């Protein structure tokens, strides 16, 4: 099986962001000297994976089993990314399929300038965004999605009782709250706070201004706080 069907270049897929810069010992195929580092919390997103470099090389040479191994190594993260961006299981599965089919077609263009996972996840993000643009629904129009209606927006938090969110937030609750964010907020929040993209990268991906990305991120966090506090109130009333 020949997996190398070049279409889009690696640089086009990864952009010019700061991601994918790793300490010595990573599995990039042509590692360059490190000039910039992401914070540790983002570094852990692309840890070295045993056997990955070999699997990439073999898959590029057309080895089907190695491609399947790459799927096994990355399916969870790609699917989780799709699910968080879309909030819909069926769509997330469809786009996970599409992302790996694109990987199959494009893996020959991967040269190792960035970490493979960084490259793959950017590919997956592009697949999701393309899908959203094609759908033509309100959540697809990024301008509209980035400007949810006022009732979706966060309330000004003046004089409201502190619910002591700090220290008591569990990740299941956060996952659920992210699912309930308006689509435009969710996109920016997932891309920035969960996936670690910079605002300039997000602005490029979503065709919006950097200021818009920053503003939407803040609104998303405010909305999340609102959702989490509401959840806490409900739990307290049940208990």
């Amino acid at each position: 099986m020949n997996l190398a069907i070049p279409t889009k270049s690696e640089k086009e897929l990864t952009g010019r962001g700061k991601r994918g810069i790793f300490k010595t010992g990573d599995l990039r195929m042509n590692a360059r000297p490190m000039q910039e580092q992401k914070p540790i919390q983002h570094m852990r997103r692309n840890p070295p994976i045993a056997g990955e470099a070999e699997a990439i090389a073999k898959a590029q040479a057309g080895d089907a089993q190695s491609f399947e191994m790459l799927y096994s190594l990355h399916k969870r993260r790609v699917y989780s990314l799709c699910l968080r961006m879309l909030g819909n299981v069926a769509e997330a599965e469809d786009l996970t399929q599409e992302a790996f089919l694109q990987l199959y077609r494009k893996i020959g263009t991967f040269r190792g300038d960035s970490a493979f996972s960084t490259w793959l996840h950017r590919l997956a993000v592009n697949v999701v965004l393309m899908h959203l643009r094609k759908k033509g629904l309100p959540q697809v129009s990024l301008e509209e999605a980035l400007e949810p209606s006022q009732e979706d927006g966060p309330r000004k938090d003046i004089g409201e009782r502190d619910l002591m969110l700090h220290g008591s937030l569990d990740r299941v609750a956060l996952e659920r709250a992210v699912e309930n964010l308006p689509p435009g907020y969710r996109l920016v929040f997932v891309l920035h706070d969960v996936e670690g993209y910079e605002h300039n990268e997000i602005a490029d991906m979503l065709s919006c201004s950097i200021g818009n990305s920053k503003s939407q991120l803040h609104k998303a966090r405010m909305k999340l706080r609102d959702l989490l506090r509401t959840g806490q109130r409900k739990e307290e009333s049940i208990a």
Partner: protein
Amino acid sequence: MSDAHNKLSGKSMNCAEFQERLPELFESGANVSQEEHVLGCENCASLVRDLEYIAAQAKLLLPIHDPSPKVWNYIESAIQNEHAEQKIPEHSGKRS
């Protein structure tokens, strides 16, 4: 000291004015919890703590969801179909 200077440094800001500036403060990388207004306002201090905590927890969200097995089945089948259409022979010893 002028009103403008006080506002810039966070002094004499009310909660609404401070929260209006919050996105800019977070993005500037400033230590928001040490802002003048925050030090004197428990409500906004709580807000800042919560927003910082949400951002920190988001970075720790792990990929916990697995796709169903049918996803790989579909991918495998689609790849096989593409190969059949392109009439590219399998490399794994099936050539005669």
